[in-house]
C-alpha cells in the first residue's frame, strides 16, 4: 500500500520536473524513487534516520537507505491532517498518545504491514530517543537486530574513538548484508560528494540572507530533514545547484515575496498542513533560516573518512551541552537579521522542549521575542488552527511593537 502511494507521488512529480527542473521537486522525486525501490526483492534495504546518521557510509555500498521516519510521515494521510487514521492502529495496540506522533505512525505502519523488509536496521541516539525505540520495535517485529549508533554528548579522544569504532562496526555489518567488502575508493567518492554539497549548501545559506528572502522556508526545512539521506550521493549536490539557480533568478528578477518581518524558525516544521505558513505569508513575515538547514560540521577528510564522519555526528549541535546550541541559534538570529524567533513545539519532543527556556532567555538578552508555537508534527488532534492563528496574531503585534 505504501509502495503504491509512493509510486503515485512519483508519477505525479516526474512530468513537472522534465518540464521545469527544480531543486525541491528533484529531491522529492529522488526520495520517492528510493522509497519505492526499497520494496524490491533485488535490493538491500537499510533502515536509517538520515538526519541523525552520517549516510555517506551507506552510499559506499549497494544499499537503499530507507528513512523510516520520513517515509511514514510523508504519507498523504499524515500530510493532509489525517495522520490519526493510521496512528490509531498503534494506539489500539497500547502505544500511548503521549508517545511522539512520528513514532506512533511508524509503529502503526509496521502493524499494517506497510513497511518494506529491512536487511539492516540502523538508528542513532541523538536528536531523540523515540526514533531509536521505534526502530527497535520495527526490527524486533521483523525478527532482526536493531543497531544503535550511540553518540555521546561530549567531544574527546575517547568519544571520537568510540564513535569511530561504531562506524567501522556498521561498515562490517553492511559488508555482511551486501556480501561485498567496503570499497575505499567509493567511500572517498561519497565523502567528496558530501563536501561538495556542503559547499553548495553554504552558498544557499548565504543567499538566504538576501532581503527579501528568496526561497521557501518549509522546503528548506523538509530538504534538511528528508534530504539528509542523500548526503554522500551526487543527488544532493544536484538538488543544491538547482536551488541556487532558482534563488539567484528570484534575486535578479526581484520576484521574492514582500517582507515586513523576518523570523528564525526552529527546530522542526509540521508535516501536516497547517495555517502557519499561509498566515506568515499573509502578514509578510518571512523565515530566512530554519535551524536544521545550517552547516554545523567541518569539511570531511577523505583520507580519514570514519573519523571524519564520527566528528560530523559529534559536532551536531543537538549533541552536547545546550549552551553550544543556544549560542549557535543566537548567531543565526544575528546573521540573518531577524526580528523574532519561532519555536515549533511538538508535544513529545521532550529534550527539545526542555531547551526552550534557554533559547527564549538568550534571545531576550539580544532583544528578540520568542514565540512558543505548540502544535504537532502529524497528529491533527494536537493542533488547533484557531489557537495557532491567535498565537501568531499576538506575536505579530509583538514584532510590530518591537519595530516601533
Amino acid at each position, binding site marked *: 500500500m505504501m509502495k503504491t502511494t509512493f509510486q503515485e507521488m512519483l508519477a505525479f512529480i516526474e512530468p513537472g520536473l522534465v518540464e521545469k527542473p527544480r531543486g525541491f521537486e528533484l529531491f522529492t522525486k529522488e526520495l520517492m524513487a528510493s522509497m519505492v525501490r526499497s520494496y524490491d526483492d533485488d535490493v538491500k534495504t537499510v533502515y536509517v534516520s538520515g538526519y541523525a546518521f552520517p549516510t555517506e557510509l551507506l552510499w559506499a555500498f549497494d544499499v537503499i537507505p530507507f528513512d523510516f521516519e520520513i517515509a511514514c510521515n510523508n504519507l498523504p494521510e499524515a500530510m493532509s491532517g489525517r495522520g490519526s487514521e493510521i496512528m490509531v492502529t498503534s494506539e489500539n495496540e497500547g502505544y500511548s498518545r503521549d508517545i511522539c506522533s512520528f513514532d506512533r505512525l511508524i509503529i502503526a505502519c509496521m502493524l499494517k504491514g506497510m513497511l518494506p523488509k529491512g536487511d539492516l536496521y540502523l538508528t542513532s541516539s541523538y536528536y531523540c530517543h523515540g526514533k531509536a525505540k521505534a526502530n527497535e520495535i520495527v526490527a524486533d517485529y521483523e525478527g532482526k537486530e536493531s543497531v544503535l549508533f550511540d553518540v*555521546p554528548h561530549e567531544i574527546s579522544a575517547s568519544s571520537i574513538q*568510540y564513535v569511530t569504532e*561504531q562506524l567501522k*562496526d556498521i561498515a562490517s555489518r553492511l559488508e555482511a548484508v551486501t556480501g561485498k567488502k567496503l570499497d575505499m575508493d567509493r567511500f572517498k567518492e561519497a565523502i567528496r560528494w558530501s563536501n561538495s554539497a556542503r559547499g553548495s549548501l553554504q552558498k544557499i545559506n548565504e543567499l538566504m540572507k538576501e532581503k527579501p528572502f528568496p526561497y521557501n522556508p518549509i522546503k528548506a526545512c523538509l530538504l534538511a530533514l528528508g534530504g539528509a539521506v542523500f548526503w554522500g550521493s551526487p543527488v544532493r549536490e544536484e538538488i543544491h545547484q538547482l536551488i541556487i539557480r532558482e534563488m539567484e533568478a528570484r534575486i535578479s528578477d526581484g520576484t521574492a515575496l514582500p517582507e515586513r518581518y523576518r523570523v528564525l524558525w526552529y527546530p522542526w516544521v509540521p508535516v501536516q498542513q497547517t495555517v502557519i505558513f499561509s498566515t506568515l505569508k499573509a502578514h509578510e513575515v518571512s523565515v530566512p533560516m530554519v535551524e536544521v538547514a545550517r552547516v554545523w560540521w567541518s569539511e570531511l577528510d577523505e583520507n580519514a573518512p570514519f573519523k571524519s564522519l564520527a566528528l560530523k555526528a559529534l559536532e551536531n549541535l543537538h549533541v552536547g551541552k545546550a549552551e553550544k546550541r543556544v549560542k549557535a541559534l543566537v548567531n543565526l538570529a544575528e546573521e540573518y537579521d531577524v526580528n523574532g524567533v519561532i519555536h515549533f513545539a511538538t508535544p513529545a519532543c521532550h529534550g527539545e522542549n*526542555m531547551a526552550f527556556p534557554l533559547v527564549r532567555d538568550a534571545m531576550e538578552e539580544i532583544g528578540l521575542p520568542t514565540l512558543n508555537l505548540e502544535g504537532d508534527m502529524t497528529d491533527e488532534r494536537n493542533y488547533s488552527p484557531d489557537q495557532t492563528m491567535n498565537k501568531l496574531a499576538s506575536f505579530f503585534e509583538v514584532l510590530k511593537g518591537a519595530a516601533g
Partner: protein
Amino acid sequence: MEDKKKIGWFCSFVPEELIMAAGLEPVRLRGSVKRLTEADAYVFSNICPYLKNIFDSGLRNRLDHLDGIIFTNSCDGMRKLYDLWIRYIYTPFTFMLEVPKNRNEAGVRYFSQQLHALKKSLEEFYSVDITVRLQGAISTMNEHRIMLGRIFEQQKQSPPPLKGSELFALSDEEMTSPKGDTTGKLKGLFDARILVIGNRMDNPTLFNLVEDAKGSVVIFDTCNGLKHYSDHVDNGPDPIESLARRYLLKPTCQRMPGFDIRMERLEQLIQDYSIEGVIYSNLKYCDYSLFEMPQIERFLKMRGIPFLGLENDYLWTDLERIRIRVEAFIEMIEGGL
C-alpha cells in the same frame, strides 16, 4: 563526627564508589515537593514528573544541602535537566556522566574513560585522592549488594519474609542514607505474589495498595530495586574498568536496546520468585516505558501471567482510581481468573 558533603545522583548507572572514595556521601535524588510551583514556568506540562519535581525542588532551594550532583544522559529529558540546572540553579559541583547505550566492549572502554573523567573532576574539585580509597569503597558497596541481594533472594520463599513496602523502604534507605545504616526486617505473609517492574518509584504507595488488597510485592525489579543490586564489581587491579563493566553490563532498563534480554530476565524472576502477577508501574510521559509496556503485556499474556499496567504522576494523586484497579487485579489472581 564531621558530616560529609553530600553528592546527589539520579540514575542507577552512577557508581557510588567513586563518590564514597572521595570522602563524600552519595544520596540518590528524589523530588521533595508535593505541589509544583516553579518548574512549570520553565518546562512543558508533559515532561517527566520526576524530573519536574526535582527541578522544582532545586528552584525552591530544597536541594541546597547537596554540594554536588552527578547527572547522566539517561533519557532526553534527563540530559536537558542538566542544561537547565547549570543555567538556573547553583550547585557547587556538577558533572554530566555520559553512559553509553551499547552494552559491548567498545561501550565498556568508553564508559571507563568517562569514569576516569568523573574521578579526575571529583579529585580536582575536592582536592582528594580517590585512588587510595577506591578499593575500600568498592568492598563496602559489594557488601551492600551482597546484603541486599540476600534479602531479595529470601523473597523467593513463600510466604516472603518482607512486605514489598518493607523491601522498598530498605532499598530506599540504602540509597538515601549514610552507608552502613541499612537494617533488615523479616515480615510478611500474603497470598498473591506480585512482581513490580517499570520505571522509577520514589514512594511506597503502590506497595501499600497491593498490601491493602491482601497481595504482596515479593520483589521489585526497577532501577531502585533488584536491578540496582545485581552483579558485583570485580575489585581487581583495574578498578575503573571493573566499575565500567559492572555498571554498564548489569541488568538493563528500557533506555538500552535489548528487549529480549529484559524478557529473559523477567521470565527468570517470575520462575525464581513464584510470581503470580506482574504490575508494570509507569511514570507518566516516560517514553521508554510507554514503548515497552504493550510488548511486555503481550509477552506475559502469551505465558498466561496476569499483567496490570499502571500509570502514575509521581505523586500518585490519582490514588483511588489506582486502588480500585489494584484490588481488582489481586482479586482476579486469587480467583484464578
